[in-house]
């Protein structure tokens, strides 16, 4: 049986290789691993809200056969989620291998802990054995290998790679050009206003202990683009648990609440306010909060817009530093 299966896989792989030699294969990199596909995927699955929005923004809804997400599907941007009638909405948060294979996909766009994990059996290596190509979100690669500091370039690489894989390079470049222009505009505004560096805490969830973004999480890139500081930028991961004592010690001046999950943003805010009542934490004393949805705080097409919102919110929260 075993030998037979191996032989079977060998046949598939060798035929794939023969085909690839005929047409020109597309080679791309996913978390440092070389991936090769012979033609652009037609039955793709995307496993989180932010990855799905990247695909939809590139006009790839017709290539999708299934989507999943830690968030409810209704949280997808309405302007992007118009023609999803043909797409299977997998119940969340993250589906298992079998329910994916049942959709006969040829491509999966997800990330480590954005759907992929050891133990669940849903990994790029396992999917490859079923002839399914994968691309892992750049930000998530920190879960499997060391990598350079996070930046908006990580999102551009994601968009550019998905664009190449699905042969919509022009659309990808147009999106990236727009984002680059807007970040540039933001940077000069920040400079012109001499916006002071602020200590910012990203509150994802958690009551026993808070879950937050570390050095390699995209929120750090957003915060740093505005010249401020993520109070947990010393933690060498993207998202992680910390302790309440650390929040107290690091005295955040501003808090971003990630809006998703069982607790509403208002509940999360009330919880923080009660927990740190009279503690002297500036952000809580002065009520300086900004609420942003999950898909806006994970790498995707809302990141730049969220950074703009954060800029507005910071300017409002600290008016003494805004000229005119």
């Amino acid at each position, binding site marked *: 049986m*075993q030998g037979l299966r191996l032989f079977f896989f060998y046949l598939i792989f060798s035929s794939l290789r023969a085909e690839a030699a005929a047409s020109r294969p597309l080679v791309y990199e996913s978390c440092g691993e070389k991936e090769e596909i012979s033609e652009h995927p037609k039955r793709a699955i995307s496993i989180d809200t932010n990855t799905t929005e990247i695909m939809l923004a590139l006009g790839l809804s017709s290539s999708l056969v299934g989507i999943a997400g830690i968030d409810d599907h209704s949280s997808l941007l309405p302007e992007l989620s118009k023609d999803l009638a043909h797409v299977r909405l997998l119940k969340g948060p*993250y589906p298992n291998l079998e*329910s994916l294979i049942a959709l006969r996909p040829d491509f999966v766009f997800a990330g480590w802990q954005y759907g992929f994990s*050891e133990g669940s059996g849903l990994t790029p290596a396992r999917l490859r054995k079923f002839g399914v190509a994968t691309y892992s979100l750049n930000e998530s690669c*920190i*879960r499997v290998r060391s990598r350079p500091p996070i930046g908006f370039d990580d999102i551009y690489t994601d968009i550019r790679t998905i664009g190449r894989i699905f042969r919509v390079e022009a659309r990808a470049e147009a999106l990236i050009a727009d984002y680059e222009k807007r970040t540039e505009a933001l940077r000069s505004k920040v400079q012109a206003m001499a916006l002071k560096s602020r200590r910012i805490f990203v509150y994802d969830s958690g009551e026993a202990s808070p879950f937050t973004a570390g050095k390699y999480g995209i929120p750090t890139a957003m915060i740093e683009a505005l010249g401020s500081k993520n109070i947990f930028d010393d933690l*060498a991961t993207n998202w992680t648990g910390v302790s309440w004592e650390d929040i107290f010690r690091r005295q955040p001046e501003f808090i971003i609440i990630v809006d998703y999950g069982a607790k509403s943003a208002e509940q999360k805010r009330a919880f923080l306010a009660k927990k740190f009542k009279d503690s002297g934490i500036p952000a809580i004393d002065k009520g300086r909060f900004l609420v942003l949805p999950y898909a806006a705080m994970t790498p995707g097409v809302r990141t730049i817009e969220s950074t703009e919102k954060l800029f507005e919110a910071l300017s409002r929260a600290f008016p003494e530093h805004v000229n005119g």
Partner: protein
Amino acid sequence: MRTVSFLWGGGTLLLFAMFILGLASGSSDLRFTELIDLLRHRLGYGPPLSEELLNKDLILWSIRLPRVLMAALSGAGLSLVGAAIQALVRNPMADPWLLGVSSGASLGAVLVLVSGLSLFGGLSLQIFAFFGASLASGLIYFFSRRSQIFSSTRLIFSGLAISFCLEALTQVVIFTAARKGEVQNVMFWTMGSLGSVESSDLLVPSLALLAGFSFLFRSRTKLNIACLSELKAFSLGLDLQRFRRNVFLVSAALTAVLVSVTGSIGFVGLMVPHVLRLLLGNDYRLLIPGCLLGGASFMIAADALARSFFSPQEIPIGIITALLGSPIFLWLMRSSNE
């Protein structure tokens, strides 16, 4: 002897029924008739498959079959080890985790993941988990012997102490890891999961179970004697020290192999032997085949439920084994006369 053949026959039937149930359940629909079609197709006759059935064929043979087989192997193995350890320490509360394999395997796995080490390719995780498990058992073995005497009490306490110590070490590694992201990748190890099992994972556990079972099956009368007092064992001519050492080594090795593939699935090794004791009595001549077939059947059923309850999500199998096993056990205990 008639009881024994009845047990083998009934147990095999049960196992077969659970096997079919395991193959038929999961997050994608597979009707019973389709399952029969696919089985017939695989055996060489039957109509050619439609595209939809081809996909189900792939799911059945590449995802479900390895899983069901691994569930059977680990259920059988853990139950056998549980029964053997209970005789070894003459304590009904003993279970396979007393041998420290679970905590040792976790430590080995965590070390590989946080160091990013991949000496043996994709297998490194399992190999290191196995080394960790063996190391833990070795330590426990070392501490539970003094001047060649193997003490049950000492085994229980050194087992507990070393497990706690290794678990603490695992936590230290997790909390000081440079790449904290690996933590979630490791979590399944402590809960147990059959989700990542592939057909290539099955060979070593099958051989280990075969070896472990044949050893315990040959030792079934000795296991009965080992449950008696030391004096009686001696008068019946059993070298108890030597026998206990062998049971320990075989059990530890079998558990280490299983845990390196699936993580530590709780409850089975403790409860299945007890349920069977209530049904069959304390005779190891019945318990050993009973654990093989009953343990395998129980685990396949538990995994089938873990896969279909909240489909397409999966619940950790340890939750199901406890949820399913506890009521069965309590009910049996109440209705027994003891």
